[in-house]
């Protein structure tokens, strides 16, 4: 992708502020008192399962829905009551919403023509943005004659051509096959980094979110659970729900019983464990969890060292570049270990020792504290 002209527009639309936004359909609260500040130039992904309210929030920012309560402002200017056509925000729809009666060129030129931009400049910018998304020379086609990936690119070019100060994308890759999704995600990422335009992206796909974003907000039940850069979100999720949503998890019920050895002492179904997980609370019942890639395996029974558990191997799966081992722990709990390359030398049905570092053992208390 070429990006002539877009680097210049970096400078971003300023901070987006969402203040106490609540939205109801009838009596159902779709959004519950959401507040967030998104600095200009960020790539924010709203990540959540369907029904979490992420699309509604995106549409409120875009002006397609007026929130029941609350305020939206950009760079300090209140835009809550502004109709979409006066917000200067690009929107890429899940269904692409390309105008079927217009050619690709006419679709892309639409925003310029309603703004009264002269024909000559308009066609120059249309060409430019079609080139940007790698669709040079297709401007005479109709959307119905394009593949899904091409349609998606047209939608992107159309939303960018008028140089909006923010771009909103509603699961734009949802309808495409896996390989194309990954490719377009990387392209979108680099487009955003070069142009510096604020992008807000909605998806339920964690991998996609992590690929592109500088910030990820995990949403459940109409609220933002946690908003942080992807790495922070993955390493120190604020609660179990967030942890489950970003990556796989091996879980067990447990109870924290004071501190020792520089960490929290934990009673688990597999015996005593130790966690030095960031700011773990030291008392009460909860759930402890380890990510599959943080488990280490060796043949034989456990020693006296901390965080070692005896287990029986249920399955060893070789997936080419990765491997996975399913383990049955004491009291019948099944955990999973994952890693790169060849699987370790363990046999199905054999006994192994599972171990992990104390800082990898996440601890979420039932009262919500971590």
């Amino acid at each position: 992708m070429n990006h002539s002209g877009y680097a210049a527009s970096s400078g971003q639309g300023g901070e987006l502020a969402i203040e106490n936004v609540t939205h109801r359909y009838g009596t159902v609260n779709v959004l519950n008192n959401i507040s967030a500040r998104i600095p200009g130039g960020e790539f924010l992904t709203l990540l959540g399962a369907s029904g979490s309210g992420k699309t509604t929030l995106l549409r409120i920012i875009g002006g397609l829905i007026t929130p029941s309560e609350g305020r939206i402002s950009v760079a300090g200017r209140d835009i809550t009551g502004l109709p979409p056509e006066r917000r200067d925000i690009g929107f890429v729809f899940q269904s692409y919403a390309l105008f079927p009666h217009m050619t690709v060129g006419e679709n892309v030129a639409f925003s310029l023509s309603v703004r009264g931009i002269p024909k000559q400049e308009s066609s120059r910018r249309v060409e430019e943005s079609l080139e940007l998304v790698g669709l040079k020379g297709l401007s005479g086609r109709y959307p119905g004659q394009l593949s899904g990936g091409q349609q998606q690119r047209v939608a992107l070019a159309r939303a960018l051509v008028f140089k909006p100060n923010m771009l909103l994308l509603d699961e734009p890759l949802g309808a495409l096959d896996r390989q194309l999704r990954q490719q377009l995600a990387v392209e979108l990422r680099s487009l955003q980094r070069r142009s510096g335009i604020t992008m807000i992206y909605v998806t339920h796909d964690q991998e996609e979110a992590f690929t592109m974003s500088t910030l990820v907000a995990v949403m459940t039940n109409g609220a933002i659970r946690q908003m942080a850069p992807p790495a922070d979100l993955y390493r120190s999720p604020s609660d179990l729900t967030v942890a489950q949503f970003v990556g796989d998890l091996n879980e067990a019920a447990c109870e924290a019983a004071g501190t020792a050895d520089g960490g929290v002492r934990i009673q688990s179904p597999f015996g005593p464990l130790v966690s030095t997980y960031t700011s773990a609370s030291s008392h009460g019942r909860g759930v402890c969890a380890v990510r599959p890639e943080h488990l280490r395996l060796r043949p034989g029974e456990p020693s006296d060292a901390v965080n070692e558990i005896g287990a029986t191997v249920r399955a060893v799966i070789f997936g080419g570049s990765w491997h996975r081992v399913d383990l049955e722990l004491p009291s019948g709990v099944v955990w999973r270990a994952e890693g790169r390359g060849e699987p370790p030398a363990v046999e199905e049905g054999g006994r192994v020792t599972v171990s992990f570092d104390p800082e990898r053992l996440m601890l979420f208390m039932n009262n919500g504290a971590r």
Partner: protein
Amino acid sequence: MRHRPNRAALLVLPGLIFLSATFIYPLIGLFLRSMDPEGRLSFTAPRFALLNYAGLLSDPLYQVILKNTFIVAAVATVVTLVLAYPVCYFMSRLPGRWAKVLLILALFPFWTSILVRLFAFTQILPHFGVMYTTTATVIGMVYYLLPYMIAVLYATMVGIDNELINAARTLGANMRQAMLRIFMPLTKPGVAVGSTMVFVISLGFFLTPALLGGGSDLTVSTYIQQQVNIAKWGRASAMGTVLLVLTLVAYYGFNRLFGSDKGGILGGGSQKGVSRTEGLRMTWPVASGFVLTIAVFAFLLAPLVIVVLLSFTSTTYLSFPPKGFSGRWYTGFFTDRDWLGSAWLSLKVAALTAVTATILGLLTAIGLVRGNLPFQRFMSAMFLAPLIVPVILIAVSLFDIANRFHLVGTLTGYVAGHALLALPVTVLIASNALRSIGTELELAARTLGASRVRAFLSVTARMIAPSLAVAAIFAFVTSWDEPVVALFMSTGRSTLPVHIFNHIQTEVSPMVAAVSTMLMAVVLLGGLFYALVSALRRRRLQAGFGG
């Protein structure tokens, strides 16, 4: 690809023979009469002269009639379009179940006998001083045409994803620009189809100008009927041929002009959890459109309500508002042998028509869909043609042939005519049903050991049974409500619509209002029954899929 017809192709034969006997042969007869200087019909020694056509060109009266017909049809089409468009826009943006209720209300007049509707206007229009004028004709035509236009436009508009309007808005278009540049261009195919349909129907209007326009308002159809009545077949058939050609030209022309397929690929997007009304803010154009919508619904329903009110009058004459309250006209109907006899005849004809048209329709559909016929498209078009040809031509040419074979006034004559009118729709419904289920399941049954016939009966036939029931109901209603063919076919005892027609023309007794009310009640009850049955079926299906 070579077409090698298989045995299923033979099944089109009964339908083809029927179509030839009741449609193609009579129309050829009409054409031959138009070529004969005296309007005589001879298949063995036809004479070809353009005398009748030359007459049409030279006589100013014909030109007035032609012009009148065209202008009235054009005006009615435009008025119908202008009224239906905003109404359909509102309906298409409403939440699904509200739209459904409104659509049923809008289509209610469609299911009501045309004579009931015309009767309503004969009672209402005199109060506005427009009875027996062209205005009255246009009002009656618009009333008849609105449900067609609404059905077509609504179907087009409901397919337009609201997301396209949203997209236009985020790109900087205001609501007006979004409507003008996105929504309206996308409705073009619907507007073209709806207008063509309505215009072609308008060209063939016969009863409406005859009853509402009075004698002064001559249209091609009324003129043809008059000429046939005085046995001037030459002029009548020449005029009929002209009407047929004009209809086909109008049909073809509209299609060429507007029927581009570019808009056909409507973005059918998912609108997950998003209310369809989210973009609809109350501005003054929205408000005025809303008022217009209410006005159109009032126009559609008020005449029918008035008929019901009139039927309970206690006086022997019709007056509005009705005086007193009495059920005498209802008891009167059930003791009147004339009315009862007509109703019984109509019932017999409609039932036989339903059976005939459905069986012929099914056989034809199997042949067309599965027969791998040569000229398959042309054959399909032939079976649909009776929908396009003005009904007055079908009626006149059928009458001509029926006369030669002494079938006028017989049950066979009525049923042949009505089955011809219903056949296109039964063929269409049965073909769509057959196409949508495909042959895969039937083949599966045959791999399991079922014979060809057995597989068809136990799989395909059972799956298309609901569609066939709909086809039969449609055929029944077509016949039950059909006045024009029946008018030409009747001698002595006439069907119910013709009986009503004669009553409206001669005396105005409240009996017609009572009969009309009962006809509407039957439609209403039938509709409720249908809704109930389909709701039950849906529930059963959902339960079956463990939903």
